[in-house]
């Protein structure tokens, strides 16, 4: 889920990276800082793509290793394309169903479209303004959750205009996604942020409470985490430190088990909080093993 607009994300990222630079005793601006500053200076904060945080080579980062990770990230991108395609196809289907007055069909298409999106939350932070328009939460005016509030509430008028906007946005996302590279570091930050976020979502009734699909959101988030980890990092991290890789994979399995229940009220929020936070910690350890500085997983600002 996206919880903020791009401008704030960029400013926040700059502040955070400034802190990192200062705490490292260095007055040199990190690449992120320079990027965010120039972005701000040119006044394109609402650009559809924001690659802040994508590439952040550590001091000890082996260029060959980074190239290998970026290559793996490209392979992951190919797999993730299927989720984006499914998001787009089902969004189109939802609009068509609404136009035909088929509420049940529109609801099912909404659920199917979200599945693709929730699996893609690993990298949607790369497109903050689109993510904001598509999945802003909690907010009933726009995006999936604005549509949800009307589509799943008995008797509410069908949100045709909102759905048309969503369809436009997901088509844009597909186009931008296809045209942009994914880098290893960005995928890793996505995995850690999503893991950390999973730890708190249950306590607030879940993200998609109206449609009753919050549990599905969580399951699809875990799918996304697992796919990204296995495709990009599993082998490379294992070669560096099998213990860390074992830990990440054990914790992914544990998180999966905790959300593999029949209904949201059966999710053990405290156990999920624990395992999700442990997973975020292990992903952070994996980043350090790879030569990156310990990443900042605070994209979870609700």
């Amino acid at each position, binding site marked *: 889920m996206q919880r*903020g607009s791009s401008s*704030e994300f960029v400013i926040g990222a700059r502040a955070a990276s400034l*802190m990192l630079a200062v705490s490292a005793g260095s007055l040199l601006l990190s690449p992120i800082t320079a990027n965010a500053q120039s972005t701000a200076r040119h006044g394109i904060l609402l650009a559809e793509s924001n690659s802040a945080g994508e590439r952040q080579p550590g001091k000890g980062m082996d260029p060959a290793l980074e190239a290998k990770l970026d290559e793996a990230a490209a392979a992951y991108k190919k797999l993730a394309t299927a989720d984006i395609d499914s998001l787009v196809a089902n969004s189109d289907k939802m609009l068509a169903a609404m136009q035909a007055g088929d509420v049940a069909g529109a609801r099912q298409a909404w659920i199917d479209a979200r599945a693709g999106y929730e699996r893609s939350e690993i990298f949607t932070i790369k497109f903050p303004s689109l993510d904001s328009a598509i999945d802003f939460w909690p907010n009933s005016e726009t995006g999936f959750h604005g549509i949800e509030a009307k589509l799943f509430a008995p008797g509410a008028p069908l949100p045709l205009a909102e759905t048309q906007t969503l369809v436009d946005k997901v088509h844009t996302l597909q186009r931008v996604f296809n045209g942009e590279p994914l880098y290893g570091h960005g995928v890793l930050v996505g995995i850690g942020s999503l893991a950390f976020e999973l730890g708190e979502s249950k306590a607030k009734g879940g993200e998609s409470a109206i449609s*009753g699909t919050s549990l599905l959101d969580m399951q699809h988030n875990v799918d996304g985490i697992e796919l990204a980890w296995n495709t990009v990092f599993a082998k490379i991290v294992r070669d560096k430190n099998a213990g860390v890789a074992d830990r990440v994979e054990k914790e992914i399995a544990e998180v999966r088990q905790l959300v593999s229940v029949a209904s949201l009220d059966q999710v053990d929020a*405290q156990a999920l909080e624990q395992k999700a936070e442990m997973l975020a910690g292990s992903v952070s*350890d994996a980043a350090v093993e790879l030569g990156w500085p310990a990443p900042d997983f*605070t994209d*979870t600002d609700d």
Partner: protein
Amino acid sequence: MSRGVQLTLSCALLCAGLALPARAGDPTVLPPGTVFGEESVRQPREILHDEADGGRQSDLVALGNMAFSSPQIFGDPARKAGLTCETCHNQGDVNPVFFIPGLSDRPGGLAVVNALFNTQTTNGLHRHIDIPSLRGIRYLAPYGRDGRIASLRDFTRNVIVNEFGGAEPSPKLVDAITAYMEQIDVLPNPKLKSDGQLTDAADPAARRGERLFNRTFPQMGSQSCASCHHPSALFVDHLQHDIGTGGAFKTQTLLNADFTAPYFHDGRYATFGQVVDYFDGTYKLGLTQADKSDLVAYLQAVGDGEQPFENNTPDRELDELLVFSRPLERAIGEHDMSVVDLAVGTIAHEMRELQERFPGPSDPLGAGEQALLRPARSAAAGLVIQLRRVQSAAQEGRYDEAMAALKAFRSQADAARPVFLAALPVSLYDPTLAAQHQALVAELTPLATQSTPPATAGSKPNP
């Protein structure tokens, strides 16, 4: 949970980008309209005896203090709902806004024996109990509103196991929680001498009230108010009396009672005036209006306390979490995983709550201040993750690494302190912003607070 319940909650969640407090009760476990009130900045001031004397919380007291804030000592669903001792006994005092629809007749209490928290003890009755303050509790035996349990330790175990469905706690843990509660002092009151008599600081009405309080009435069996509320013994007699409120209940202290309304075992009276009226009416004392207001003035003087409230700050929270980290350190050294898990779970969750007081960019109150707020959120998240590293290492038997990770956590906490303080003025630690935030949330949740709770089978209201 019914669809209707989900709808009422999610409307509130979806209407705006507000950060809702995570521990307002898990909405899938407790009924809508549940209020824990933990988002309030103002909180009762807690004085721990050894700290007030210039010492510190012993490791045992710190362990108890930590467990007091942990839902993990309770069974499901209290645990899942995030309920802790601290939820009701906020800073060892009371929680006047605490309310669970169906379990609470009025804010500030609940029927502690109920079908929700422990089916084994359910008796088909609904008896609302007002939350008592724990200030001075070590002097206030016996325990329970009806005083049925002589020992605070036994009473505590009963609360954990029988009222809130927890597993049998280790003897050490019960010792620890008891030791912590025994530290909670009554707030000093300059209007009272050590023998409970009023000082010159009390006003004339209160002094007239004091004489009435000590006057015997034939209608009360030639006893006075002071016959049970002994001024020289913290205003109690350690006995139970039937004063016509539906059974025998123990004498409550009047110290710091200005801050513990409502009154009587079931919280039926909101003010001292109503309490005085009750005695006047029940025992036909024939008090004049002036007598009554003098008695109320006396109760107010006796019930006063210095600086009863203080504002919560990230400083206080960090200090507390660092105290909690001491029993964690000891547990790592002793390879005591039950305490490691308990401590990490508690500290990490409190740290998440601290993080939520720094609103994100989608919160209307935080939107413009992310340059300060985001580093604070980031630091808090980093602390949470670091604690989980401690736990993870300990669980795998890497105790040295766990200890090193805990040291790193403490350094990180020290580094986070100025970051939190820099963001304080734009955070929900600012009382004005917190009040605005609560007002916005309240505006968005009328449905949730109005909804009718599911009736408990076989329950009947208090007489």
